[in-house]
């Protein structure tokens, strides 16, 4: 099975990762930050699977599955936190949630 060269996959992965990073850095809503995190995780997954296929090993794909499981759990916890914050009428703005300042 032929397809695009692995370099293209990595380029897409890098682009996705950059997008996610910028999202985490620039956006203020915790919800969007969570989404951006997911994008970063998936960029990593893409890179793992592409490289795994390139070398003909299954390791990367298995690892990607593990990452997905982690991502799913993370979303559960993260969304739960956001819902809890909303319930307590906290401002959903990470720049104003600075209770942990030293």
């Amino acid at each position, binding site marked *: 099975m032929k397809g695009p060269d692995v370099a293209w996959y990595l380029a897409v992965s890098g682009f996705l990762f950059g997008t996610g*990073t910028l999202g*985490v*850095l*620039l956006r203020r809503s915790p919800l969007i*930050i969570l989404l951006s995190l997911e994008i970063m995780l998936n960029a990593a997954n893409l890179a793992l699977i592409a490289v795994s296929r390139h070398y003909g090993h299954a390791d990367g794909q298995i690892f990607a599955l593990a990452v997905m499981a982690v991502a799913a759990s993370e979303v559960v916890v993260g969304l739960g936190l956001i819902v809890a914050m909303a319930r307590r009428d906290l401002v959903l703005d*990470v*720049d104003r*949630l*600075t*209770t*942990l*300042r*030293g």
Partner: protein
Amino acid sequence: MVVASWICLLAPLAAALAITVLGERISRRGAGYLATASVVGSFAASVVTFALLTGQAREDRVRYSTVWDWLGTGTLHFGLRILVDPLSVMMMLIVTGVGALIVGYSVGYMDGDEEERRYFAYMALFVFSMLLLVQGGNLLILLAGWGLVGLSSYLLIGFWQDRPSAIAAAKKAFVMNAFGDATMALAFFLLIQHTGSLDFERVFASDLSGNHWLVNLVALGLLGGAVAKSAQLPLQTWLPDAMEGPTPVSALIHAATMVTAGVYLIVRTHPLFELAPKVQDLAAGLGAATLVMAGLIALVQTDIKRVIAYSTMSQIGYMFLAAGIGAYGNGMFHLMTHAFFKALLFMAAGIVIHALAGEQDIRRMGGLRRLLPKTYLATLVGALALVGVPPFAGFFSKDSILAAALGRGWYGDILWGLGLLGTFLTGLYTFRLVFLVFEGRPSAFVLEHLTAGSHAGGQEGHRHELAPNEPGDEPASTHAHPAHVHVGEGPFSMTSTVAVLALLSLVGGFLQFAGLWTPVSDWLDPVARPLVDATGWQETASSVLAVAFGLFGVFIAWGIYSRKLMEAPSAPRLRALLENKLYFDRAYDLAFYNPAVALARGWNVLIERPLVAGSITGVAGGSRRLAGRVTAAQTGLVRTYVFALAASLAVLIVVFVSVR
């Protein structure tokens, strides 16, 4: 025989441990009975040992018993070893016999104290330590006992630990004794170096006579220990302060037994002292100087217990004199009779103090003769024995010491003269005490306590609980000690033991009558053969003169303090000198205490505060400042953290790529 002496040694230790372990499960009185029973048991065991030892042939009366190897390094081995010989058995009998009476007396005296159990545990521990000292089969065990008696003495002087003066006195006694312990330990090191052993028989058998420096140093070291323990010049200042302890403690430790340990040490190690005649002369001289000095100071003391304490010091001076000139039997005999009459005097004083709710100032007493007739009688017996009036015990023992000093050249004659002066002083200060306390008309203070009787008892019983916390209270009444006040002369446990001691002071002297029969000296002869033997005329002359001098002292005391025929000479300079105890305390403060304090202050300013304390606060302050800087990095903003992560990741990637 050996088994009996082990029982004698260990019974008080068992009682001390039992009282400690049982704690609240044993009643206070029960603790007293247990301690008394253990010491009585010890006494019974000593009597058995004595009886069995008399059954042996004279040459066969030295028995060692080793249970196990206690300490060993290389070729040196020290067994846990006791020695049973005439000298140690005599000391065992004195310690346990007088000890049993005094511990029994304490049951009544300490009744009602908050911490009777602790008291009796300490007392039993003391008796064990003293027995270890006298039964020790080598010099190391002796030193262990020596240290332990110092410890128990410290604990018991400071028994009323809420009194600052008692704590200070305990510390003073401990430090001065530690000095003596140190000189003894140094002497032992020398002995180990040169004889390779500390066992009595090996040390005494080895030939050291060629090495003058060595024998003199060893003897000096031992003498230092003896002088500190027995409160002789120049380490005497702790003994009067030690009177802060309960009166039975003063009777047992600071009169009858522990303070005489120095005499025992000299007699026990006499082969070493005999190699160093100069040190022997020094011991005798110190004894003579102490006996005169203590007698003089006793003349101006106003605390009933301190008068007796100085008298103890003075009497131990006689024993040192005897041990120094080599009259070992006479010295040990005086040790024994002194244990009887001095314990008696202390315990009688204890009854007086009890009856007057803790008052110890003789100027506030007076006229007790009719109010406490039995105590008066007991004190009179003790006082007559102390002065050496025939037929009381002191007459037989003290005069033979004086006689032994005669016929030893000019030095012996000086000692003899000082001893005679001492008897005069003894008569004077002893009967000053007797007349001030018992004669005359009862003072208002006495009447308040003794004739109103019952109501005073309850009231005073409460006052003592407040006394230690009330610094404003006048000094005399802060002496109120934590024991219930008994109306009259005290419970049976106190009166009966005093009666036994009075009897012993009355008849104890007949054990030995120099020139006629000398069982004590004969008994000790195999262990310590005397170097001197007084002739008949020396004995007679000394006795006549000593009794005359003593009675002359009594007569003057009678004139001044009873009949008021003459005024006490005022001599303010001399009086100030004596009331300040010849300024020994002040001199020691100047020579040792003040420099030490100044040195400590200096170190504090130069080293402690800048270096030690400075380094610690420096470390603490430094980390706090550093932490302050680091906290600035914790903004609480998620994006800061993420940026830091991303930036470091980017740096890592760059590094990775470029390095590869």
